[in-house]
């Protein structure tokens, strides 16, 4: 059955008298979503929303939950499965009877109804200034005679019952919203959600306020999405404008802003769909519902309709796909959102009995996004605007003992509009052999898998430490201080032994750390190596080991006293006023960042500035939870200052540094190292968007991948080694002079760690279509022995011969790279297959083409 009869049936719907001008405008937001094979309580969403508050302004927040628990709703499993959960928000409580009499009672058989629980007084939630609407929840089915009548009137008799019912619910809600929530008039009530097994709630406040106000801390669901809004127009913000918006069986939250709102509105109007809440997000979900439910596109084509594959990525598609995609694009281009956007969708695929969480990013990759997957006693997938939001969710689950580790097993970004992953990923909760299962896949249906490894499952009985390791410890420790020797020595044990044994090694290290300051230093260095380095972990999940190392490091740090005569001096939020100048020149200030504000005048970043001002040259931060701007504000010529960061570093780390050395033990986020001028930066993980934007120098080493737009507009002399790859737009408008004459360059190795601890080649050393665009200086050296990088990926640059001179230039940096990460120049970089090749056969150079002056 085509969708045309359904579209025609909407002709009868009244058209709003409102103007087509966007009433509310917004650009910013924080979004997060999670999906799990067991139902999770709302409190696990809470922390991530709290940590992303800086992405919103408290003028709108909301959540949606999918895959609910019947007992919590007071209904049977059958009703939960078959009924539509119609939730109406009453802004004017007195309107309820009228709304029910006009829009609910006549058409629906109401199997259950109740008022959604909320706190007694909204003012008890700090920051809530506007009273949230009272929400009523009705479990409904359309009365058979009403449905027959509907089918007859609209010539829809050939349609399946469920399709008819879906459409009726949709149209009925539209009528209700039009009548009781006109954007230019009195707002009395609106439908918040009406899908099956799906609820959405929103208010004027932050996303976490919704969880608190509607008492969702213990409310369980398999799939959650949450959102903070940053609207910029309108004095009175209405909850109806907050996200998520609901189509029918899907709820959508959105980070970004469209340029072609009008075009989309007209596209929808041609199909008799009229937005009522006048924001970008509403039309997004209306499009989604149209393509999914009315046109019945499979997911891959739906994603293509919203985010068309273009430019080089289109050319790289197989011919079959090109034909279909071209047709889709021709039909849908006017209904495709243009501009920066990132959608997270919670969708009930009723037909397939699957609950889905999707993340779809725009084709220019203008908004940040991160995905993560962890498998253990439960399997959980998370999508967020920022990586630290993911850590917040996993951290809370780990603290409550629900999962073994606060670290995911895999993290990745989507490459928007790409032929490689389609710019979209999906977590799907389905029935399996033993209850529900979670699967992760990309736009093309390719599964994201994890190797079959064991996770940490309680500590078990104490195991006697192998005598040789106990003897080694004193030998490797002081006075020889050979942490690297210890690390190399203990690697086989870490690979072959079980978790209990590793636990024992860590216990020994903890004990050793208490023996004195030199021992403590040895232990910190050894633990850092275990934490940072990539190596074979045998049958054990690395994420579980990281949890153990993380705890050991924290224990060692927390045991440091606040003594003036030790190598270490520890401070935390509560005793921060005890900051004085260092007792010894080489003393390290260790700061527990946990209770420090993430930003602002009292933030840990400002505390670091104060500490430097007091004369501290060695600063170590731990328990970071998204703390922002670390390294900013230190001023010029900070040579000799060393900063180490443990935990979840926030955005803008190392921005503007001029001389100091900063190490991130883990991943960095967006906007890291903006305008970095001079100094050394080492990141033992990935970095986010716009890395080193407009940097002027620096010796920078990144273990993992960079996201979109690294090193754009950089000048001078940055020398960067990225061991992974980038999404796209690497070094656009690079102006870094002549690399052989004091200029800058970027080395891209295109490698990734395998689960066996080796470094293996990624499918493409550089997957994007815009490499070194419009650059006028500097060079890119890419490890590309298989000659995968092609000319059509360049835009104003050219591939040149890689000379001995080039190798002499980058070799010292690759050797330092080897010291920092253990990525061996000979065995990992220059070895292809089983042969060691000459560098000119492995590396390729991309240099700028001199541009004509624009006159």
């Amino acid at each position, binding site marked *: 059955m085509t969708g045309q009869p359904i579209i025609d049936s909407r002709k009868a719907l009244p058209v709003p008298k409102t103007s087509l001008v966007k009433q509310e*405008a917004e*650009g*910013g937001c924080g979004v997060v979503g999670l999906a799990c094979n067991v139902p999770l309580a709302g409190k696990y969403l809470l922390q991530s929303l709290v940590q992303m508050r800086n992405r919103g302004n408290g003028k709108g927040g909301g959540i949606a939950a999918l895959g609910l628990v019947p007992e919590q709703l007071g209904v049977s499993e059958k009703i939960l499965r078959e009924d539509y959960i119609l939730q109406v928000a009453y802004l004017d409580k007195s309107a309820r009877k009228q709304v029910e009499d006009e829009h609910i009672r006549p058409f629906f058989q109401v199997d259950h109804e109740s008022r959604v629980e909320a706190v007694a007084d909204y003012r008890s939630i700090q920051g809530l200034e506007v009273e949230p609407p009272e929400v009523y929840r009705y479990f409904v089915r359309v009365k058979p005679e009403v449905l027959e009548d509907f089918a007859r009137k609209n010539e829809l008799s050939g349609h399946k019952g469920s399709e008819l019912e879906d459409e009726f619910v949709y149209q009925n809600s539209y009528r209700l919203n039009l009548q009781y929530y006109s954007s230019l008039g009195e707002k009395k009530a609106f439908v918040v959600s009406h899908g099956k097994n799906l609820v959405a709630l929103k208010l004027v406040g932050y996303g976490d306020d919704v969880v608190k106000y509607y008492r969702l801390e213990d409310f369980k669901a398999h799939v959650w999405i949450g959102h903070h809004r940053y609207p*910029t127009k309108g004095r009175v913000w209405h909850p109806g404008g907050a996200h998520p918006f609901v189509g029918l069986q899907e709820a959508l939250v959105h980070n970004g802003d469209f340029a072609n709102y009008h075009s989309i509105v007209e596209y929808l109007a041609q199909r008799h769909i009229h937005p009522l809440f006048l924001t970008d997000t509403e039309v997004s979900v209306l499009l989604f519902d149209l393509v999914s439910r009315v046109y019945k596109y499979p997911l891959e084509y739906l994603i293509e309709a919203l985010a068309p594959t273009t430019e080089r990525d289109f050319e790289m598609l197989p011919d079959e796909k090109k034909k279909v995609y071209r047709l889709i694009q021709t039909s849908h281009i006017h209904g495709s959102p243009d501009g920066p956007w990132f959608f997270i969708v919670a969708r009930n695929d009723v037909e397939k009995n699957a609950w889905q969480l999707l993340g779809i990013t725009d084709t220019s990759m203008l908004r940040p996004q991160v995905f993560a997957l962890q498998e253990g006693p439960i399997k959980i997938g998370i999508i967020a605007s920022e990586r630290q939001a993911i850590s917040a969710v996993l951290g809370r689950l780990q603290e409550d003992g629900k999962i073994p580790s606060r670290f995911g097993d895999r993290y990745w970004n989507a490459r928007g509009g790409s032929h490689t992953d389609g710019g979209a990923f999906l977590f799907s909760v389905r029935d399996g052999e033993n209850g529900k299962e979670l699967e992760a896949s990309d736009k093309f249906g390719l599964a994201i898998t994890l190797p079959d490894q064991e996770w940490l499952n309680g500590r078990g009985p104490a195991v006697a430490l192998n005598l040789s390791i106990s003897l080694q410890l004193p030998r490797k420790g002081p006075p020889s201080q050979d942490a690297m020797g210890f690390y190399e020595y203990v690697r086989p044990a870490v690979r072959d032994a079980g978790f209990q044994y590793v636990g024992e090694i860590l216990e020994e290290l903890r004990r050793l750390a208490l023996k004195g300051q030199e021992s403590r230093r040895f232990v910190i260095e050894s633990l850092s190596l275990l934490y940072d380095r990539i190596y074979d972990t045998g049958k054990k999940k690395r994420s579980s080991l990281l949890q153990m190392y993380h705890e050991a490091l924290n224990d060692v740090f927390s045991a440091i006293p606040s003594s003036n005569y030790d190598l270490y001096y520890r401070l935390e939020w509560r005793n921060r006023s005890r900051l004085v100048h260092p007792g010894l020149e080489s003393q390290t200030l260790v700061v527990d960042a946990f209770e420090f504000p993430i930003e602002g005048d009292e*933030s840990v970043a400002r505390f670091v500035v104060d500490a430097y001002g007091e004369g501290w040259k060695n600063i170590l931060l731990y328990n970071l939870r998204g703390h922002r701007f670390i390294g900013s504000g230190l001023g010029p010529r900070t040579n000799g200052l060393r900063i180490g960061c443990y935990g979840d570093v926030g955005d803008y780390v190392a*921005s503007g540094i001029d001389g100091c050395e900063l190490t991130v033990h883990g991943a960095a986020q967006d906007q890291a190292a903006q305008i970095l001028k001079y100094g050394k930066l080492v990141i033992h993980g990935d970095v986010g968007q716009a890395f080193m934007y407009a940097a002027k120098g620096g010796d920078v080493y990144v273990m993992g991948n960079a996201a979109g737009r690294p090193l*754009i507009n950089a000048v001078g002399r940055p020398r960067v080694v990225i061991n992974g790859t980038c999404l796209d737009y690497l070094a656009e408008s690079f102006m870094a002079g002549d690399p052989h004459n004091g200029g800058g360059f970027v080395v891209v190795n295109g490698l990734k760690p395998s689960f066996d601890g080796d470094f293996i080649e990624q499918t493409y050393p550089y997957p994007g279509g815009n490499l070194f665009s419009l650059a006028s200086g500097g060079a890119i050296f890419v490890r590309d022995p298989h000659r995968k990088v092609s000319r059509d990926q360049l835009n104003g640059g050219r591939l040149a011969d890689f000379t001995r001179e080039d190798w002499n230039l980058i070799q010292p940096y690759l050797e330092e790279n080897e010291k920092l990460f253990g990525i061996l120049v000979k065995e990992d970089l220059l070895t292809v297959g089983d042969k060691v090749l000459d560098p000119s056969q492995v590396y390729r150079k991309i240099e700028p083409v001199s541009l004509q002056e624009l006159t």
Partner: protein
Amino acid sequence: MFTSLYSPFPFHSVYSVEDHKKHVDWIKTVNPRAVVSVKVSTPTDVDMVAIGSYYAGANIIHIDGGYGGTGAAPEIAKKNIAMPVEYAIPKVHEYLVSEGVRDRITLMASGGIRTADDVAKAIALGADGCVIGTAEAVAVGCTHCGNCERGRGCQVGITTTDPELSEFIDPAWGETRIVNLFNAWSKRLRMILVEFGLESIRELRGRKDLLVRYK
């Protein structure tokens, strides 16, 4: 009357208003005492841009209208981009008043403000002050030849770092010229205030009623 263009943005780390807010947060971390001024051009929704910047933490919003121009902008763009500042100022001023935040942010205007009367008009329309570009350059001898961005293009020695060309202007002489300009302006502005019986230029802000449209 005007349609907004969505033109490529050169600051690749800022693609939405929350990115802008993040940058302002960053500046305030680097220097907590910094006064942050956000300069924007004047699209049709300049009022929304202003309120977005306010929420991002800006202290000053500086709107740059369509009649201004950089020496380096191509001719076709120079006079045809953005809303004339006369439309933009009251639009932003009145919107900020209606949002209740007018006195929490300073509104500066620029774009073709060339005389003291222009300054008075801008303030009467709702600005707190003006930023002067071309007029100051002309005061020190600019002949408006439009070659500013070329290395050795400025024949008067203003917009150049070339060691030879920068000799053309004596900073002390330039200082007197600019002082003269602003002295003359301040005299004229006082004349205007006296005529309307106002005690301070602050009282002129938003006094659209004192403006007359010539038919």
